[in-house]
């Protein structure tokens, strides 16, 4: 009798082997479900259902912006060295989840080679930007010659809350390419994840949650760009919008027009690479993409310059 029970238990354990996961938003260091209660289905190449992903609404955007605003000042006020350490730590945690990322990307249509190359590139990019936190001021700050008795100097400061519209692909590298310069700059962000390939973004949220990044600095919400871009581009408490030119032209125009309300900075980068490009020549595509992302000027774009006139006397 006792033996039979054991074998029953084992079979039960086996059927429970893979529990489909419900992916959620990442707001203020927590994983709330979308307020809407709506979901869309993400399917593998073979049509198999992989996961339900939340269709977030303006209220999720509102909550995320609120969290980002609250967290921003303390992030910007950390020492540059400390911010570098925290960003570096993301790469450490990300490496531990290599396999999960690769599997998820392959499920969604990546070739294994492209997925692995992309994750390598992500790690390299994180370490690259982690190094910039305490150098950006030295390289780009300046002492300016002026024709009066003033010590005149300029330094970079954070702008505030940033709305990041992730490119569809490369799903992780593209998002990090837009995110990391902002983290270095001292901004806090609300990321609208890729609609077609949301899993790497959602898993990246889990990386953040277990790293040292303070709650609220990076918030990730999933859903339709056509539903999430209007509220974020109209939001008066968002200071910068970044995305890339693969975004639908009407939505890009909306970003530009609505941003006039509070003078948001709007940056649309050249289009990132498509999945076809990534899969057909992964080596060349990823290395070109990485090369263009490793650029400190991306940090300058999302900072503001403060110039101080300090009186001096003989």
């Amino acid at each position, binding site marked *: 009798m006792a033996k039979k029970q054991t074998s029953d238990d084992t079979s039960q354990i086996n059927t429970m082997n893979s529990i489909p996961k419900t992916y959620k938003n990442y707001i203020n260091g927590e994983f709330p479900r979308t307020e809407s209660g709506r979901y869309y289905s993400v399917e593998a190449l073979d049509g198999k259902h992989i996961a339900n992903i939340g269709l977030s609404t*303006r209220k999720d*955007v*509102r909550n995320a*912006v609120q969290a980002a*605003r609250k967290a921003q000042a303390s992030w910007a006020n950390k020492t540059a060295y400390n911010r570098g350490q925290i960003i570096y730590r993301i790469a450490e945690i990300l490496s531990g989840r290599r396999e999960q990322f690769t599997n998820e990307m392959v499920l969604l249509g990546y070739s294994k080679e492209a997925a692995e190359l992309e994750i390598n590139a992500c790690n390299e990019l994180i370490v690259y930007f982690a190094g910039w936190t305490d150098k950006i001021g030295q390289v780009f700050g300046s002492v300016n010659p002026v024709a009066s008795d003033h010590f005149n100097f300029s330094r970079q400061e954070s702008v505030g809350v940033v709305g990041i519209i992730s490119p569809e692909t490369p799903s992780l590298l593209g998002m990090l390419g837009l995110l990391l310069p902002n983290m270095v700059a001292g901004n806090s962000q609300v990321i609208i994840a890729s609609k077609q390939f949301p899993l790497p973004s959602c898993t990246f949220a889990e990386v953040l949650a277990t790293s040292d990044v303070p709650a609220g600095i990076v918030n990730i919400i999933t859903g339709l760009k056509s539903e999430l871009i209007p*509220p974020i581009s*109209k*939001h*008066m*408490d968002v200071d910068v919008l970044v995305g890339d030119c693969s975004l639908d032209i009407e939505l890009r125009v909306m970003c530009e027009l609505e941003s006039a*309300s*509070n003078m948001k900075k709007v940056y649309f980068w050249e289009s990132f690479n498509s999945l076809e490009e990534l899969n057909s020549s992964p080596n060349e595509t990823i290395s070109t993409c990485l090369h263009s992302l490793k650029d400190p000027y991306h940090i300058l774009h999302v900072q503001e310059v403060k110039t101080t006139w300090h009186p001096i006397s003989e």
Partner: protein
Amino acid sequence: MIDRIPIDAVGIQERVARVCTRSIKKESKLQALDLALRMMDLTTLEGSDSEGKVRQLCNKALHPYTELPNIPSVAAVCVYPNRVALAKSILNNSSISIASVATAFPSGMSSLIIKLDDVKFAVSEGADEIDMVISRGAFLSGEYAKVYDEIAQIKEVCGTAHLKVILETGELGSLENVRMASDLAMKAGADFIKTSTGKISPAATMPVVLVMLQAIRDFHETTGRKIGMKPAGGIRSSKQAIQYLVMVKETLGNDWLDPSLFRFGASSLANDVLMQWIKEKTGRYQSLNYFSND
């Protein structure tokens, strides 16, 4: 003199939870926000209050948001007695009342003579409303008659000024005490009963306010007199304010949905109400960057 009425704390909690589920959206939300703004006692009660700060507060009371001239002004500003004259000089030609805390605010730890003088001074400077504190020490040691007499004497020197009695519910310990202090204050002549000074945590909470509202309802049923209610401290968001309004309507009825019988004592609430108001009108979530601090 005052009966001790038992309070069902669990029942109160459940009632409050029920009130908080009401969905107030769109047009009704706009009306509620409009009402909340008209019911506001814009308050600054800091030791650091300078002339400039009070001047700024008065201007905010007159023109909550200059880009929207149609937005209603608040009910009153609430300041310390030595800032009443300044507030009066700015708000003289407006409908905004001047409320002043008095009676050795916030502790109330002084002699009756000094408390009375404090009130007389505020009234002579031009205060329309006096927010007094009760002697919690005396109340908690059972000297109810002393507390009653103090309120009655202060009411006398108030003259035409309205008297709001602050119970400081955060120091009273139990809902029974809150109910008892409410009954006592109303019998002694209070025009309003008010939860807190804002200096003690917890300040206004919904269960406490519900108990006070029920006391007002019972007092009205027995005497026919309508006493006002003012929750103060801790109400920072429009959502909270609307929940309070729902509770007032469902406990006391429409008569109390008026600035003459209900007030919010708050400072940061005003900006949130304005932000929500503009959000409802424009569909844009607002930023605190564009609203003045005071």
